[in-house]
């Protein structure tokens, strides 16, 4: 690993993640953990939205699939480390199945199909009592125990989540940097040109969506042992919108944008607690204002500001134009 400025920042970030929960109460530790879990889901959606340019409203449904599969398996005595890959794989396969018809046609059909899928998943979870516990959900799922390291304590579970999050980020980074990942970006910037350069746009978009869905499954799989109680309402359409907002607020297409966005979206209710019922209203207005005035999200805004302050070497303007040609 080369000692570059960026790696230094990453190390500082990791150190902060490790130090953050020390001496904090249960609630803060729980909030931090759920921030990481939602960051994973949002980073998955970022692959679909930010890199491949398609809207998915099914991220909460994939979280539901991951969470319920993990819950049902771990309740039957199967270890989390076995249940998790099954949950992730199922989400991946479901993503392929749903994405395939939707991505056959141009336009925002994926948004509708995923909207329908989220509603369908919610109906199945609510109606099939024998499997999912119906509206009462499932509870009492055990937290994974790795012999030397038992995640039963909240703080231990937090470090476990940090570990998974770091592994996941490294994997994601490899994907984004790989030829596939570059193809995703090419697709978002200019579909026709990407296609003329020999990129199979349909297959690449489908793959981006399926990998994003698998990330949703992983987040769900962590959600189960974190909350130890899951019910259909936790995965309703509103939560898909929340994850979408995390990506937009943070900055779609920036690698760590969704992490910032998830932080804002999860912390915002705490900050806006004094406004009581107006929270969602302020939230909605914030999103609209942000989209109108700062379409690249907070990370994009930060980049613009830092460029203005530091007066870094300016990329030649015609290069910027070149990307759009």
């Amino acid at each position: 690993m080369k000692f570059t400025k960026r790696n230094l920042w990453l190390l500082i970030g990791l150190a902060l993640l490790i130090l953050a929960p020390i001496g904090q109460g249960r609630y803060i530790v729980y909030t931090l953990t759920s921030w990481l879990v939602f960051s994973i889901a949002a980073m998955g959606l970022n692959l679909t939205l930010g890199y491949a340019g398609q809207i998915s409203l099914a991220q909460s449904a994939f979280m539901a699939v991951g969470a319920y599969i993990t819950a049902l398996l771990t309740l039957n005595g199967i270890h989390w480390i076995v249940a998790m890959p099954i949950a992730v794989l199922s989400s991946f396969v479901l993503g392929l199945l749903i994405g395939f018809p939707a991505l056959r046609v141009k336009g925002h059909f994926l948004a509708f199909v995923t909207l329908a899928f989220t509603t369908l998943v919610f109906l199945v979870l609510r109606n099939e009592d024998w499997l999912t516990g119906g509206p009462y959900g499932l509870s009492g799922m055990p937290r994974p125990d790795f012999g030397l390291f038992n995640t039963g304590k909240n703080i231990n579970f937090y470090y476990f989540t940090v570990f998974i999050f770091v592994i996941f980020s490294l994997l994601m980074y490899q994907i984004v940097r790989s030829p596939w990942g570059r193809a995703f970006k090419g697709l978002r910037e200019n579909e026709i040109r990407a296609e003329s350069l020999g990129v199979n746009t349909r297959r690449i978009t489908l793959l981006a969506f399926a990998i994003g869905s698998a990330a949703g499954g992983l987040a769900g799989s962590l959600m189960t042992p974190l909350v130890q109680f899951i019910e259909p309402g936790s995965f309703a359409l509103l939560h898909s919108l929340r994850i979408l907002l995390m990506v937009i607020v943070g900055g779609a297409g920036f690698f760590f944008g969704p992490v910032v966005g998830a932080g804002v979206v999860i912390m915002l209710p705490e900050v806006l607690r004094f406004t009581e019922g107006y929270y969602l209203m302020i939230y909605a207005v914030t999103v609209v204002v942000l989209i109108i005035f700062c379409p690249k999200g907070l990370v994009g805004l930060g980049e613009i500001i830092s460029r203005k302050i530091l007066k870094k070497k300016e990329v030649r303007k015609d290069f910027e134009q070149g990307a759009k040609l």
Partner: protein
Amino acid sequence: MEQLIQVVLSGLATGSIYALAAIGFTLIWQAAQTVNFAQGEFVMLPAFFVLIGINFLGMPLWLAMLFGLALSVLILGVAFKRILVDPLLSHGGLSLIIATMAVAILMKELVKEFYSAEAQPYPALVPQGAWDLSGVIISLQDISHLIICFVVIVGLTLFLDKTKVGRCMQAAAQNAAVAEILGVNVKRMILYTFVVNAVLATLASFLITPVYLAKFSSGEYLGLIAFIAAIVGGFNQVRGALAGGLLIGVLDNITATYITAEYRQAIPLLLLIAVILFKPEGILGKPEGRAV
């Protein structure tokens, strides 16, 4: 048999109201190439404007309805276009779609917080009661809904096809650049489209709210049904949206009566997936553009 006729008839009546919302949806799609995720809330809100007129301003029903229509045209038509669509249109469809989602949340929360979270009774627009035609009970309300929607849709089609403004709107939707060269004020036509959408949503609101009561969350399902009706029928056709709306209304009723009430909401969704899989341009739509 009698029951089946009743079920189909009332399905057609509800479906015709869905069609009004779905038509507005397709018009916006054609004019601005965007998907209005707040369409369901556009149908929910006018009913509350009317309730405000009746309960807080002491208006009679007819005046309150005019008041509601005026507010809808101003807020859902003109303000929506000016404040949200104009600055966002150049960023591409994605930002606008997400902004309409945020607007949907905002509208729901405003109603919940400042009016009520409970379902509100809403005055019926048309006579209640029923005819008994040799065993088949026909609700007057259903028949009136069907007739009103039919008149509105025929009127809209005539407006779009026969008047100069309507033809200019179509031209602007089909090819904005060419329309502009030929002297059509494209921006104004897009504004008109949003106003027409607001009027259609308001009419749908006046008709459907007496049936389902006025509630802040009622737009969620309605919006979803309107999308599905538009896609199933054909996104680029007024008559497509009409066919889609009627089909879903009837299917929904038949499922709820004869098959399953629990999965009633799932039927339109499955229909949607089937249509996208086998005939993505919709039942009556024309193929548009190319497949990816």
